[in-house]
């Protein structure tokens, strides 16, 4: 089977509830997102900005092939891809934070840019950890955040990918953000 056919059948199997299909799919998606993100980063120097959804769409077309790009497959794919994006971002944020502590021997200059990146990395890790707690309370809301924030999907795309209404996504998005901000910033009493 060609790689594109493989991705399509894995997506379909996962859609039917096969969790093993997801396990096989994830590394493929992860690798492709990595590749596109890297190229997009180079493109930024030419004034292109990184659009998360464009990135996911491109990964999807590449992996599934344009002829297999059915509406249903695309929804499944976005659901996987957002989880992969979250993994990529959190892993890199963590290694970034670990790298800064590093060994005392290597003297790396920390300029303003690096500092900002560092703070952002810390935020990403904090959010990820709070999101794991939200998952235990209300897993759908944690999925909404994952898609909106880590995957960059719009409200409508999130609704499609999760198979819920736009109104529900809006309500989940609002409550989940409030809940997460409370978790991260702590309660002021």
């Amino acid at each position, binding site marked *: 089977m060609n790689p594109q056919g493989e991705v399509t059948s894995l997506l379909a199997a996962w859609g039917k509830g096969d969790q093993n299909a997801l396990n096989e799919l994830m590394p493929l998606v992860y690798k492709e997102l990595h590749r596109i*993100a*890297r190229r997009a980063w*180079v493109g930024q120097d030419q004034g292109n900005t990184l659009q998360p959804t464009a990135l996911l769409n491109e990964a999807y077309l590449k992996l599934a092939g344009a002829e297999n790009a059915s509406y249903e497959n695309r929804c499944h794919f976005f659901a996987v891809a957002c989880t992969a994006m979250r993994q990529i971002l959190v892993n890199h*944020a963590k*290694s970034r934070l670990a790298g800064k502590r590093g060994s005392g021997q*290597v003297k790396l200059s920390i300029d303003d840019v690096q*500092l900002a990146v560092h703070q952002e990395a810390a935020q990403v890790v904090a959010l990820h950890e709070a999101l794991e707690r939200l998952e235990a309370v209300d897993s759908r809301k944690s999925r909404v955040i994952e898609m909106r924030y880590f995957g960059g999907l719009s409200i409508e795309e999130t609704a499609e990918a999760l198979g819920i209404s736009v109104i529900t996504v809006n309500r989940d998005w609002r*409550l989940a953000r409030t809940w997460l*901000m409370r978790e991260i910033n702590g309660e002021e009493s």
Partner: protein
Amino acid sequence: MIQPADWEKVEELFHEAIDLPVHQREALLASTSAAVRAELESLLKADEKAFFAEPPVHLAADLLERQPGALAAGQRIGKYEIESLITVGGMGEVYLARDPSGGPIALKILRRHLVASPQAVDRFETEARAASALHHPNIVTVCESGESAAGLFIAMEWIDGPTFRELIDAGAVDTAQAIDWGGQAAGAVAAAHAAGILHRDIKPANIILGKDGVLKILDFGLARLAGPVRLEVNSSGASGTISGTLSGTLLYMSPELFRGELASTASDVYSLGTLLYELWAGRHPFAAETPLAVFEAIECRVVAAPSTLRAGIPAEIDGLILRMLDRDPGVRPSASKVCEVFSRFSAKP
């Protein structure tokens, strides 16, 4: 953790309460259980607007590519084995590595995302070519250059010692020492010029003093036989870039390059003069508070002779350094002339 049944209630009341004016919320809250009320009150105090505005995808790309120390110890690049990360520069990373016989090697690697830019590859290859074309005791020796899965690499002799940046920052250097170093540095630049190669980026961070007291010039990254040099201002638009670049390269850049003129051997002499001035006088001749003030100083400041800042500087060297810093490239001495003067002093008992 809140109970599922309570959570449903919290969710329902949250959406009702959030759009009500604060004073009207109390009636809604009063009818609930203590657990639901506590959870609601704490949520209503939190600010959803504080949620991160942007999806962090740009961060992913940044983290993918800028993360220092991308290569782990033990990884192989060509026939070399990575030991540790030494520094991260604008274009690449420098690692301490081991060659097959276990000897130390400095391995400079051009990061893969920059390989996509033809200019970066061009510059990296220029560095490899220029440095391997030069054989001089005071110019770092290139052992090999090539390409591996991790990117383009240059393997260079490993020099264990401080850079001139560190030496200058550490404080006053004695006269005999400064004369010796000045002669070695000028000798290396003169040899490059004799071979028709400009360095174009002479600065304290690019000169290392080996344990044996032999100084080595590194980083022929901007070296080119001929052609215009371009002022490369980092276009990321992020703050910190200008001052970062200034403290690095621009402080040692000659006024003719600021004016957009072609680099010449005299431009290298100027950069070397700035560095020697700093070494002798203990401070940079064009140091100033802001980047703009530095530009102005390079264009206009009347530089005080090093001897006014420090005693014991031979008059001939005092005048020589000032002429190296002359705004008119035509007035500056050649590197071989500078080398000759310094050598004469170091030969004296």
